[in-house]
């Protein structure tokens, strides 16, 4: 082993705090595009933004599933070194799942949606998208949104939104989604209704 992992957070405590606040703002305001306050030098295909999300949220208590387009020896080693999270093969057990492209996450119902008594025991999917922008695109409704919001998501096929929509009758069970484009994120918790 002569692998030297790329750096993680420069300031683990403050960087994690700032990252969490960004994620919390995104999750509390679905469809809002939030700037990530810090980045990491995580290897591709993981990349700086996803790497920072992972370090803020994941640790040895949270099994991760990497989509085939995300799994590489460098990425697995970086995650193992900085977050201590184990990468697992069974996506149904994953607390977080990461993908380079949204369609790599399909089928969505293979992830845990939680149990009726414990809907929190469900997966959070973190996926890279080509671009994020407010004002046009998907029409969003639900908690955290005053009336409606619009979110333009680049590079996600319609079939993905249809698959997400098929989970909505299961509420309060479901999966939560964090989209990341470069240094920007937006979140779509299970409560957000998406019209294409």
């Amino acid at each position: 082993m002569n692998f030297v992992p790329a750096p993680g957070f420069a300031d683990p405590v403050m960087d994690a705090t700032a990252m969490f606040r960004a994620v919390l703002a995104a999750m509390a305001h679905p469809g809002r595009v939030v700037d990530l306050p810090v980045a990491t030098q995580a290897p591709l295909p993981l990349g700086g933004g996803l790497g920072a999300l992972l370090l803020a949220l994941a640790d040895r208590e949270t099994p991760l599933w990497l989509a085939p387009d995300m799994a590489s020896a460098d990425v697995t080693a970086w995650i193992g070194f900085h977050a201590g999270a184990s990468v697992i093969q069974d996506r149904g057990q994953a607390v977080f799942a990461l993908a380079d492209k949204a369609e790599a996450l399909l089928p969505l119902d293979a992830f845990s949606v939680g149990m009726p008594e414990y809907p929190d025991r469900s997966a959070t999917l973190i996926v890279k998208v080509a671009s994020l922008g407010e004002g046009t695109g998907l029409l969003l409704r639900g908690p955290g949104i005053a009336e409606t919001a619009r979110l333009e998501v680049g590079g996600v096929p319609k079939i993905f939104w249809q698959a997400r929509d098929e989970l909505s009758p299961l509420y309060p069970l479901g999966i939560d989604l964090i989209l990341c484009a470069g240094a920007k994120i937006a979140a779509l918790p299970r409560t957000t209704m998406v019209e294409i």
Partner: protein
Amino acid sequence: MSKGYNFAYLDEQTKRMIRRAILKGVAIPGYQVPFASREMPLPYGWGTGGIQVTASVIGPNDVLKVIDQGADDTTNAVSIRRFFARTAGVKTTERTSEASLIQTRHRIPEQPLKEGQILVYQVPIPEPLRWMEPRETETRKMHALAEYGVMHVKLYEDIARFGRIASSYNYPVLVHGRYVMAPSPIPKFDNPKMDRMPALQLFGAGREKRIYAVPPYTSVKSLDFEDHPFEVQRWDKPCELCGASDTYLDEVITDDQGARMFVCSDSDACQERQKGAA
């Protein structure tokens, strides 16, 4: 800022665990997320849950306000405010409008909260069904099935015995049309403020090890009946210090002859109004 402690007291592993619970709470409004509550350097009942939520959320640029029954100057509020001034080095304030983060015990400030503010409630008993059903396995199932008949029976029994719904605090609410939630022991006077509030509301129960949340602009409806609609408390007289007639009033005994006065419970709102009148 004190040396020898991590920023905001809690270790990073604990904060991550609490942060994950908060995010799931926001994603499932009103659902109580179990979390591995830690021992804190204050006794249960003094806000161990709220303090853990605040410690996991707070950042160096936050301005913190802490209230206890509406007041900024009572023991619980002063000691928690000082705790975070020492362990996180944050600015503190007594002004509702200046605060980015407000930890509260049993009140919602009178001044409407804005988008971007976060309100953290200290919760003693997070389970609204607990007095009707002591078994956690059963209440969990009742929430899973949205089987809330027992709560309506309780409210109905109040009407049958007293002619009205007698609960005046911790009055149960329905969040996002799905989960019945305990709003913590805030007076029911404050319940309407929770509905579609622009600020994010987080709830922490340390002894009971539960975190839950209400995202901004989320429907929060107080349970009632068509022929007995939800009502808030009213007072015959305005606040005797500031003259406000639209705030929640505390009864204060002023001597041992039975003299008493009614004054605002929200000390910041009351003082601001007195300043404005002067």
